[in-house]
């Protein structure tokens, strides 16, 4: 299982991953994080020692399935309560920089 990409998993491309996360980093941050994260990822590989071929994954400690509530309309937050925290707004809508020319 963990055999995949063995040689490429050794180094994390910090600048690329930060772009995926929509997070701008300064060059100095990329450098600092590179060393720290390589160190951490190297440590995380410890789990490769285990044979996990017949083990089911656990996504939650408590197994719950199909938790439903009654299908009835309930009041939520009022528009003005939600908009009160908006950094920029126009007519009860969130304002953002232009997306399409």
């Amino acid at each position, binding site marked *: *299982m*963990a055999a*995949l*990409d063995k040689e*490429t*998993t050794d180094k*994390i491309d*910090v600048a690329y*991953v*930060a772009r*995926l*996360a*929509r*997070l*701008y*980093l*300064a060059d100095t*941050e990329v450098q*600092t*994080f590179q060393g*720290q*994260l390589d*160190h*951490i*990822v190297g*440590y*995380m*590989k*410890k*789990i*490769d*020692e*285990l044979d*996990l071929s017949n*083990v*089911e*994954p*656990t*996504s*939650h*400690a*408590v197994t*719950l399935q199909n*938790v439903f*509530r009654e299908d009835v309309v309930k009041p939520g*937050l009022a528009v003005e*309560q*939600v908009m*009160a*925290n*908006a*950094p*920029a707004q126009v007519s009860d809508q*969130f304002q*953002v*920089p*232009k*997306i399409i020319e």
Partner: protein
Amino acid sequence: MSLSIANMTICEAIALLEGKQCTSVELVSVLLNEIRRIDGTLGAYLSVDENDAVSQAMAADKARSEGRKGRLLGIPLAVKDVLNVRGQPCTCASKILQGYIAPYDATAVAMLRREGAVLVGRTNMDEFAMGSSTENSGFKITKNPRNIAYVPGGSSGGSAAAVAGGEAIAALGTDTGGSIRQPAAFCGCVGLKPTYGRISRYGLTAFASSLDQIGPITKNVKDAAVLLGVMAGRDEMDSTSVDVPVPDYLTSLSGDLKGMKLGLPKEYFVKGMDPEVEAAVRTAVEVCGGLGAEVVEVSLPHTDYAISTYYIIATAEASANLARFDGVRYGFRAAGAEDPIDMYGKTRAAGFGAEVKRRIILGTYVLSSGYYDAYYLSAQKVRTLIKRDFENVFMQCDALLTPVSPTVPYKIGETSSDPLRMYLGDIFTVTANLAGICGLSVPCGMSSQGLPIGLQVLGPAFREENILRAGHAYESARGLIRYGE
């Protein structure tokens, strides 16, 4: 009479209020004075709304005079700044949430209010609960009240420092990998991480949704039992809260351990841990034996893999949860962006601190195409093994006794440049979150320098009564610890 908050417990405050020896307004006024006097040094609070606290206290006094009841009527409490308290800031100690005002109460907060509690202030923490020292706050450093050159632990360091430092009667924290238990141990107070699903997480700003739990930080075990009893239960607003009956936790505090079987996991007493921590915990184990418990050695064989597993799962979930902080709907937005993508990147660059950025990158990496199976899926499988370890030992015993942390508190600034070293300090606490079980931290001594040491009591899922009983009996037999001497 002269009121002192410093060593006051919830139960003592209730007795004073019920005996009409003081009012809630008097209690809150003394507390606000203490915050003004001490907090400039300790830095435990991020925001305190004095007028709001006093008006809540007046309402509580009025309710009492009208004969209304409430398990916490008039009791002032502090809340970690990661929980929404209606009308108050909730920053998660992050600049990205600067200016955000909570439009609603977290369910746990609402349940405290329903019983009459007075919510006085919101406490400092590691940004988005990511850290073990409260040095990662975006706003300020909190000091350990037992010695201000040292960290209070984290991430609920503000709550623990406020309680131990005499500027709160009790407080709420949250625990994703030890963030209640470890600061409680570092500051010399009691911290309870309930079972996953025991308390609703609605209104708790999510860090790692499958690991986060809310819990109390208090001056003794009985107070922790009181607050758990108020907050526990199923909530429609959190589909992961579980419908298990809530027992009367106070009746489990028998004061003895007769008939109880306590396990000592051998993997939690290892080379490399501070010998003073080991000695204090071993002494506590002997005390428990003297109270009638049968102590047996047990094994949790996958303990060594817990830190890797935890930091893969927690960062993966964090990277997804923190995607919502993009500057669109609330909080901080960076100026001068050319388009929305540019706005996200600039906002997150300026809004998040270094540890949060590291964890977002790590979490995005372990979830990214090509690496998902090797890291995230494998970690979920190891989580199964860790959970199974606990299921096995809890067939042999009622609770486990371990250290909370392998070290005593360290000096401010000592580990902040070495994140992996800080992560490794979480080895004895992350396992309870991965397995979803409950854990309690109780002071059990101090180092030669007078710094607190904590005993951890771990219990099976939804058996908080086991660990409260063990912690309470031990605490009663232990006697007073005079820190710094």
